[in-house]
């Protein structure tokens, strides 16, 4: 019975680990740990430089390891670390996307020219509005902990896309979420609204994690395993009650949809996007969306494809709700960051259309859409951070009136990005919508695609409204000015705009790459 002194067990064998495949993730995790040590042992004055150098080197190094591996990666992909990680073509596509987006977001985070001292508070522990708080506003420092936190979040996202079982997926979900909750509350300006957004995100995120975990437990009860492939096998031929399977699936999906800010699980999105420091909003909007949909694609395709008849109708409703909420509520917004938040909810609905088409075209289309949306939204938030007045960022739409007369370059760039989000031809957004919707039609989801087209037409209206406001209104006399960004922010925005342009003109290579393989398990 309760023998805590076990009989001798057979020794275990050290596993075969494909280090070359997971090296990008290991580099990021290792660099994040070194970043923590830098925080511990490097003097305050040189911390920023050390952290920026380390983080950039880490992402570039991870990118190099990634490129070296991709060139001769096996066609069918592989699983490693006791089958907890599946490095296959979709995962590699998402990793590449995440690394590039992460680089852009890191550049925005590291920038200290747009806001003196960076977008982050010098000491988050000081209460907002106190004398000490005013003193630290004047000082130029920032919490350099954001750099290791960003690296942790990024590695969590990469693991989330490649997790082959639900337990790994859950831990990865937390690894990517925890740093984000934290960084949301670190804005230098408007600290109360920033902290409020962090608390909201954290509480709702914790609830979503609980849903995910409950679903995981029920699915384990159903299949006797947390591996996606085992769940799929059990669903194909198991005598166990389907209540466990679908109850578990439903709860699991709630957790996933929350992270992807889909439809009725979106409540946190506008507040958090608005309150967070804009570089973090950019990081969150671009990278979390990619990671979350990577996870959704894998769970739906690997784990639940055989039962898709039963759950598909429910996710149709979710997709429609997401598109309608995003498009309609987006119309009523007066704050540019909130408007982009509702836009991201609408886009989540469009992405779900692709994810629901459980066929190779749907997979490659969704992957491509994620790539395009990520870069567009990254650059858009980068541009938002440049329009400022004496109180920091001027995010109210009325302040953007006549911006083209003050700064034609920024106005044109932003207009281009908005057109890409609206899905106007010659931008990447058009191609993305095209491939996703055509995959939906091929899979017999014509009604859903029609609703999606109507929703994108409605959404296009509020994008165009901003463009009209920027180009055809008179600027207010005391309106905001456009800050001339330093190298980092310029590079990030340029990266986003260039990718949006290139993928709009010559999308073939990326589409080919997105369609080269399926999930391994």
């Amino acid at each position, binding site marked *: 019975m309760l023998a*805590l002194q076990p009989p001798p067990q057979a020794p275990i064998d050290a596993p075969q680990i494909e280090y070359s495949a997971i090296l990008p993730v290991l580099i990021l995790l290792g660099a994040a740990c070194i970043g923590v040590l830098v925080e511990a042992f490097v003097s305050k004055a040189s911390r920023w430089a050390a952290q920026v150098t380390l983080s950039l080197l880490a992402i570039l190094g991870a990118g190099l390891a990634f490129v070296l591996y991709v060139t001769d990666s096996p066609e069918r992909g592989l699983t490693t670390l006791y089958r907890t990680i599946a490095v296959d073509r979709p995962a590699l596509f998402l990793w590449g996307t995440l690394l590039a987006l992460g680089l852009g977001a890191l550049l925005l985070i590291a920038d200290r020219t747009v806001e003196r001292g960076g977008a982050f508070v010098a000491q988050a522990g000081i209460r907002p509005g106190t004398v000490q708080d005013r003193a630290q506003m004047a000082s130029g420092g920032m919490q350099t902990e954001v750099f*290791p936190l960003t690296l942790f979040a990024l590695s969590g996202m990469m693991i989330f896309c490649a997790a082959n079982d639900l337990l*790994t997926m859950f*831990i990865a979900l937390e690894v990517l979420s*925890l740093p984000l909750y934290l960084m949301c509350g670190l804005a230098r300006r408007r600290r109360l609204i920033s902290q409020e957004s962090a608390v909201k995100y954290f509480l709702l995120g914790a609830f979503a994690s609980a849903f995910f975990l409950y679903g995981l437990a029920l699915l384990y009860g159903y299949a006797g395993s947390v591996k996606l492939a085992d769940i799929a096998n059990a669903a194909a031929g198991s005598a166990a009650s389907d209540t466990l399977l679908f109850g578990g699936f439903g709860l699991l999906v709630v957790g996933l949809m929350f992270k992807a800010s889909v439809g009725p699980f979106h409540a946190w999105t506008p507040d958090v996007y608005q309150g967070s420091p804009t570089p973090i909003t950019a990081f969150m909007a671009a990278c979390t969306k990619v990671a979350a949909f990577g996870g959704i694609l894998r769970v739906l395709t690997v784990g639940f494809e055989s039962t898709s008849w039963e759950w598909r109708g429910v996710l149709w409703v979710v997709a429609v709700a997401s598109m309608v909420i995003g498009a309609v509520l987006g119309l009523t917004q007066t704050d540019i960051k909130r408007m982009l938040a509702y836009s991201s909810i609408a886009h989540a609905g469009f992405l779900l259309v692709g994810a629901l088409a459980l066929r190779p075209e749907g997979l490659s289309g969704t992957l491509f859409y994620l790539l395009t949306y990520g870069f567009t939204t990254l650059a858009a938030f980068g541009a938002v951070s440049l329009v400022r007045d004496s109180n920091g960022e001027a995010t109210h739409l009325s302040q953007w009136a006549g911006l083209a007369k003050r700064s034609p370059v920024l106005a044109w760039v932003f207009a281009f990005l908005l057109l890409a989000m609206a899905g106007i031809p010659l931008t990447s957004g058009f191609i993305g919508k095209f491939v996703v919707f055509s995959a939906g039609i091929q899979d017999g989801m014509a009604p859903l695609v029609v609703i999606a087209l109507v929703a994108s037409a409605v959404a296009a209206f509020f994008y165009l409204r901003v463009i009209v406001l920027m180009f055809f209104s008179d600027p207010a006399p005391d309106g905001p000015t456009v800050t001339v960004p330093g190298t980092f922010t310029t590079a990030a925005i340029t990266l986003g705009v260039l990718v949006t342009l290139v993928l709009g003109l010559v999308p073939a290579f990326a589409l080919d790459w997105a369609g080269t393989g399926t999930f391994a398990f």
Partner: protein
Amino acid sequence: MSNSAMLLAQAGAEVAKVSTGEAISFWILAPLALGGALGMIFARNAVHSAMFLVLTMLSLGVMYMVQQAPFLGFVQIIVYTGAIMMLFLFVLMLVGRDSSDSVVEVLRGQRVWAAILGIGLAGLLVTGVAEALTSVRPVGLAEQNAGGANVANIGRSVFTDYLFPFELTSALLITAALGAMVLGYTDKSKRRTQRETADARFRGEHDRPSPLPGPGVYATANSVAVPALLPDGSIAPESVSAIIEATASRELATDIETVAGAIPGPDAHALKPAAAKEGDK
């Protein structure tokens, strides 16, 4: 929670005979767990609520051990009763022991709907899962605790099948430490040394350069409430802790005011008794 425990107990009864010891421990632990849970909900003081929760969790932990899941039992006690409950208490202390939520509803009818939907979801889950669990074939204790070593089997699992999630947990722990430091700690790097503080005292930045005199202790009294005498025989008022003096006056303040008529008495014409005066506690 206790529902599932009952369920497990029932399932166990069908599979194998429950030993007397197990039955006795169940009938001791289950009421304790249930009582703790009810106490947690109905206790007025938040700290008492937390303590009742500790009782429930401890009972559950012991119950797990009785069910031959010693690792789960230990983790329940170490993590939940130890760490999580400590965090609960800390949060209560941070928020303020006696502070209560604002009762203003921002969205009208929000509470009612939240209650209805919450109870609905709970009912759906409990009935669904309870119904579904009957069709689940348990692995069985013998197979699960093969070799009589529950903990060792878990060790094997953690270091083989779940090696990567386990190592990834350390990233979570680091993030937690970073977060606690970033949010809860302010760097007071300009702390004065002892020397500087002493200089400041004599420069007159403090009320007096020396510490306050201690209280007088006489042969007749060993109380700190007795003041010390100065060399000239006069009383040194600052030798008695201000709190002792203040307590008396604070406690009597209301009485004095009532006697002096500063506080209006009950109004004979009022329909309701006047609200008790807020403030002095």
